[in-house]
């Protein structure tokens, strides 16, 4: 298997003279569950922002499904099958659970359907699909509540579902397990495995190593804006450079997360 859905080649990016990303290159295999780890400030979120088009890289190219994404505005990347969640939950605070999830469908909706009232013509507008999806992942609609009043764990999950509603082929998840307790993390893992079984490639950033170990099969490690490891997760423990980078940092490769 060597079909790559995402190819990063020599990505560099700096803010105000500080190099945040330096010649980062790695590939994400189609159908894989790929983790991107590294200490805080290693440039992981910046790399996500470059992939999703929020930042333009100074150097280097992002290839998605074999095509150069340069010049494709961030808004249009979701149409190509690239969807993401955020490190700090960025759900729309004044929308309900259902509305947030339906916003995820926006890129797939025909122009004419945009003008149909959602409350009366629910079938054609994707409302039914949104309700079904939420149900299948065991998320309550929480009718009569905006998302800002819901618990953290539920919002975290809704954000993943919202990203899924675009029917992406690659899903970028920025710290999906952060702030969840052990039981919730386990549930999220099973949930993401289910997502993966549906044929969606996952690229995720997380600090929770047991979670990453039990979910992902590929891993890339970054430190100070550079890639220091890229390969199967099983061989990560034996890599000298990775061990050095993590020595003395709060992130422990074996034990629980910081």
């Amino acid at each position, binding site marked *: 298997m060597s079909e790559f859905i995402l190819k990063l080649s020599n990505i560099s990016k700096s803010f105000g003279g500080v190099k945040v990303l330096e010649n980062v290159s790695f590939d994400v295999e189609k159908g894989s569950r790929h983790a991107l780890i590294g200490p805080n400030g290693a440039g992981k979120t910046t790399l996500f922002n470059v992939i*999703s*088009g*929020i930042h333009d890289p100074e150097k280097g190219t992002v290839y998605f499904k074999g095509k150069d994404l340069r010049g494709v505005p*961030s*808004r*249009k*990347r*979701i*149409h190509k099958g690239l969807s*993401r969640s*955020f490190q700090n939950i*960025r759900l*729309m*605070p*004044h*929308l*309900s659970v259902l*509305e947030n999830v*339906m*916003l*995820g469908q*926006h*890129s797939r*909706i025909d122009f004419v*359907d*945009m*003008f*149909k*009232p*959602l*409350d009366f013509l629910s079938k054609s*507008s994707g409302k039914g699909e949104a309700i079904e999806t939420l149900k299948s992942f065991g998320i309550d609609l929480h*009718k*009569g*509540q*905006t998302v800002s*009043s819901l618990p953290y764990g539920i919002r975290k999950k809704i954000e993943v579902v*919202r990203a899924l509603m*675009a029917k992406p082929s690659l899903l970028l998840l920025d710290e999906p397990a952060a702030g969840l307790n052990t039981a919730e993390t386990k549930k999220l893992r099973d949930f993401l495995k289910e997502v993966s079984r549906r044929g969606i490639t996952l690229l995720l950033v997380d600090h929770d190593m047991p979670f990453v170990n039990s979910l992902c099969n590929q891993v890339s490690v970054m430190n100070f804006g550079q890639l220091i490891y890229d390969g199967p997760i099983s061989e990560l423990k034996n890599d000298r450079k990775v061990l050095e980078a993590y020595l003395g940092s709060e992130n422990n490769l074996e034990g629980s997360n910081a």
Partner: protein
Amino acid sequence: MSGYLSGVLAILGINVIFAYSIYITAATGQLNLGGAGFQAIGAYACAILSNELGLPIYLTLIFSAILGGAISFLIAFPVLRTKGVYMVLATFAIAEIVAGIILNSDFLGGPTGMIVNNYIETEVVLVVAIIVVFLGFYIMSTRIGLAMRAVHDDEAVADLMGVNKRAIQVSAFTIGGSIAGLSGGLYALYFGFIEAQYFNANISIFVLLYVLIGGTQTAWGPLLGASFFTLIPEALRIGDDWRFFIFGVIIVAMMILRPEGIVTRDALDRVWSKLFSRKSNV
């Protein structure tokens, strides 16, 4: 209908329409502090078309809306490059420029104002108001409305969800401008006299406050806000000065206690579910 009541209802109708024009923009998270300017454009368009060309009422009203919308569309592109406080200042400046042009133009009557040759009854105002309210509810109930609210809550994320933020904002600003023009046309036809001094900064401020106090989260906000601030002072029969003083106190209090406005989604859903459960019990 008594003369007094019909007068109050006409003002209510015009204010409600005007409030929706500002609401459509505010729902996408942009404050238009130049409402009076767009209303003035509609009012003067209506007056000129009635007086000079003798067009029938419905045509003059349609042209008021079209002209308000067209001018909004043209200035939307430069104005929507600005954000936040700059957008407030830019729209404020536009209203001042419009008023300045009217004051300097002999054709538009300058500072002495203009008499309008046509006249409409309160009923016309109310019918148009009902149509505009329906339009507001309709837009907010579609995916366009959903996208507008998303842009209001978080522009960057809405963009990543594939929402064309610029198209949404330009359309909202244009629709807003045309509704403001329409309200101006109705004002001109109902009162039969217009002058530049009426369309001043205070009018822009008041209508924006109606909308923000009513609440920008749902289409009920402008309806309630405009009705509340038009009808309550009439009901209390207090003098103009006290009316605006109390208005100011209410605004300050609201911003502390309930800054999201009178009508919020949460509150509305609670009311709906209560009504709904009562029905099912019966």
